[in-house]
């Protein structure tokens, strides 16, 4: 007997069409309880629907909003059942996302049914320094990028005497390829809030903020519902005093993820960072001592207090304990959110969990615009804070992009630098102007006008920007360039010396070519070319062609391809 039907309605699901599925399900299964849940992390299989029955739960993937399909689903048709591949199940370790997609995010009761707020209950009975000690024992390090020990940060705030102390959850998640925090907030808002409340008890903070990226409306909604629920139940009362929790929306500025910029933004100012020290724990929101932690950091806390720091530290490595969430995307089969134990190798994540084809992958980009590219021959490196840093990448917040063989590394570096240049707050010289100059240099290189001096300039200026920037944005902005320079120097040199982009990605270095022998003269390319540059006898005028790829996309027999500019005629793929 069907007990209830759960539709994955996190952002990823909605984008894949879960909304329509939900509507239709509600219609055709009026007698059943249909609920919205969060994301189980298997985004590649969305929309996902889980049916709870007496005899167990069944998940269905890629559900289409068609009555026939849904009927089948209600009949528990074996055919469309979702079965995550075994390797992934083996390698994942769900410490904090075990409830994601399983429970209704906005149901306090359901959260409680799954040990929710037990950690808080326990914490309320502990002394603040006992909690701090427990977190120290867990060796939990900040998941927002820097990896600063959370217990230590809390101890700083706890030690402060002040009429007001502030605890801030950094939910700005600005890395353009990361969505771990979003998933946590959408799917498990109570778990994040519980972590924060435990933090409040531990540090004496009585004013709590969640600074959430503006582009996450569902997260904001779910968090606000959750806050309302706990306030109603008085769960926010610590030592007899209600703690104020407020969700504040950012307004579109990556740099506001930086602590001091975030505080300025909370204060209603321009989100420019300032020099540290003083650190926020000494001088934070309106001058009050403030501690800032990442969403995922807070989401780890309930487990630590509930099960004990030592238990937590069993997972992971000596210096990087616990698990880490990664947003897997790029050139691989199973993209989505994964939770893996620290210390797992990059290769295991990319190949075993992500299902990427061995041999098809050139590198991974870890840590987003602050991180770096790690080439495939380093894939046995364990994922922990220190190993990644030693390779020139960083753990970062958890974006992990798989880069296939047919991507240009120079273009990839250019992309990240374009992002940081756009997001620079414009305050300090090296970042404001330096990143712009680096970007211009990269544009010269991808535009076929680079020189070997340009390549040298990139590394010289890059290193100077790292040293001479005020905040983490500038201090890490050159990483994607420096790491690709280190591991893919040959690609840079091919661009500047031979005018050759092996990935055929850099427009200025390729021509579009129609292979007359394969072409069946269907005329599709001619019809679709926006600039009418394909002649009646199927020859591309490359002077006019904008390399828009329209023809390549429509050609039914793959007769069209990009080739090296002016070079030998050889069709890629």
């Amino acid at each position, binding site marked *: 007997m069907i007990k209830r039907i759960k539709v994955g309605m996190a*952002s*990823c699901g*909605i*984008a*894949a069409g879960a909304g329509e599925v939900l509507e239709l399900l509600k219609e055709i299964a009026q007698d059943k309880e249909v609920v919205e849940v969060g994301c189980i992390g298997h*985004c*590649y299989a*969305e929309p996902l629907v889980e049916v709870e029955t007496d005899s167990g739960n069944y998940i269905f993937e890629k559900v289409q909003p068609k009555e026939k399909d849904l009927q089948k689903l209600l009949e528990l048709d074996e055919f469309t059942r979702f079965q995550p591949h075994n390797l992934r199940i083996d390698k994942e370790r769900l410490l904090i996302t075990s409830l994601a997609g399983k429970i209704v995010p906005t149901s306090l009761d359901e959260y409680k049914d799954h040990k929710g707020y037990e950690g808080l209950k326990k914490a309320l009975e502990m002394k603040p320094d006992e909690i701090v000690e427990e977190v120290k024992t867990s060796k939990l390090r900040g998941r927002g990028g820097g990896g600063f020990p959370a217990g230590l940060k809390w101890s700083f705030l706890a030690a402060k005497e002040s009429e007001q102390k502030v605890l801030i959850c950094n939910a700005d998640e*600005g*890395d*353009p*390829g*990361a*969505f771990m925090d*979003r998933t946590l907030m959408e799917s498990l808002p109570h778990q994040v809030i519980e972590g924060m409340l435990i933090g409040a008890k531990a540090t004496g903070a009585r004013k709590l903020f969640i600074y959430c990226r*503006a*582009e*996450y409306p569902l997260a904001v909604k779910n968090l606000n519902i959750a806050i309302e629920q706990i306030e109603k139940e008085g769960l926010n009362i610590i030592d007899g005093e209600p703690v104020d929790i407020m969700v*504040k*929306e*950012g*307004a*579109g*500025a*990556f740099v506001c993820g930086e602590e001091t910029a975030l505080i300025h*933004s*909370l*204060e*209603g*100012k*321009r*989100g*420019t960072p300032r020099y540290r020290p003083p650190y926020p724990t000494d001088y934070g929101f*309106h001058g009050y001592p403030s501690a800032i932690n990442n969403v995922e950091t807070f989401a780890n806390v309930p487990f630590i207090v509930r099960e004990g720091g030592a238990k937590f530290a069993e997972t992971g490595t000596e210096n990087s304990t616990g698990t880490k969430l990664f*947003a897997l*995307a*790029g*050139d691989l089969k199973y*993209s*989505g959110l994964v939770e893996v134990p620290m210390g797992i190798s990059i290769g295991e994540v990319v190949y075993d969990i992500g299902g990427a084809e061995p041999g098809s992958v050139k590198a991974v*980009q870890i840590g*987003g615009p602050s991180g770096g590219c790690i080439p495939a021959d380093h894939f046995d490196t364990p994922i922990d804070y220190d190993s990644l840093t030693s390779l020139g990448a960083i753990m970062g917040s958890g*974006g992990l*992009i798989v*880069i296939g063989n047919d*991507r240009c590394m120079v273009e*990839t570096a250019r*992309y*990240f630098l374009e*992002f940081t240049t756009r997001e620079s*707050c414009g305050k300090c010289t090296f970042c404001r102007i330096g990143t712009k100059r680096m970007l211009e240099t990269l544009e010269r290189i991808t535009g076929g006008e680079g020189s070997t001096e340009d390549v040298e300039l990139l590394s010289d200026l890059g290193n100077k920007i790292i040293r001479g920037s005020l905040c983490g944005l500038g201090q890490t902005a050159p990483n994607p360039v420096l790491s690709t320079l280190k591991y893919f120097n040959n690609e840079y040199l091919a661009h500047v010396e031979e005018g050759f982009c092996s990935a055929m990605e850099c427009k200025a270095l390729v021509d579009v070519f129609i292979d007359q022998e394969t072409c069946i003269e269907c005329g599709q390319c001619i019809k*679709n070319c*926006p600039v009418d540059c394909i002649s009646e006898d199927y020859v591309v005028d490359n002077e006019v062609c*904008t390399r*828009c*790829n*329209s023809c390549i*996309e*429509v050609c039914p027999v793959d007769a069209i391809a990009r080739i090296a500019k002016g070079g030998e005629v050889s069709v890629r793929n």
Partner: protein
Amino acid sequence: MSKEKVMEKSNLIKVLQTEQKKEGFISDAAIERIAEEFDLPVVEVEGVVSFYTQFKRVPPGKYQIMVCDGTACHIIGSTLILNWITDDLGIKDGETDEEGLFSLESVACLGCCSLAPVISINGKVYGKLDRKKLLKIIADYKKKEAAGA
């Protein structure tokens, strides 16, 4: 006492967001009015508005197309997507067409990387796009508009 007022200023961004939601953009007059409400210098409010990309100073098109240029989408070809839209609608990144119908903007990750490449139109997300799918989506909006008008 003075703390009271300072605390208020921290609502500035919220108030600006509400204004933008209501009007679609933030006008000079709104800046002046809000500055007065908060007792802040006009130039400071203007500075805050111009810092955050969320705030628009001109009215956007009826349909706001956002092309995701997050890492996953970029790697899979968001540049082509942007170019195809530009070819189709004649507007570039950051522009609005003459009729005020479509505006085009590239944004960082829309949060559904596994569906890359992704665009959203007035908040509705379309994923796994290729050229054909994309042009059909836009054509549908145009048709809808033609029918409505």
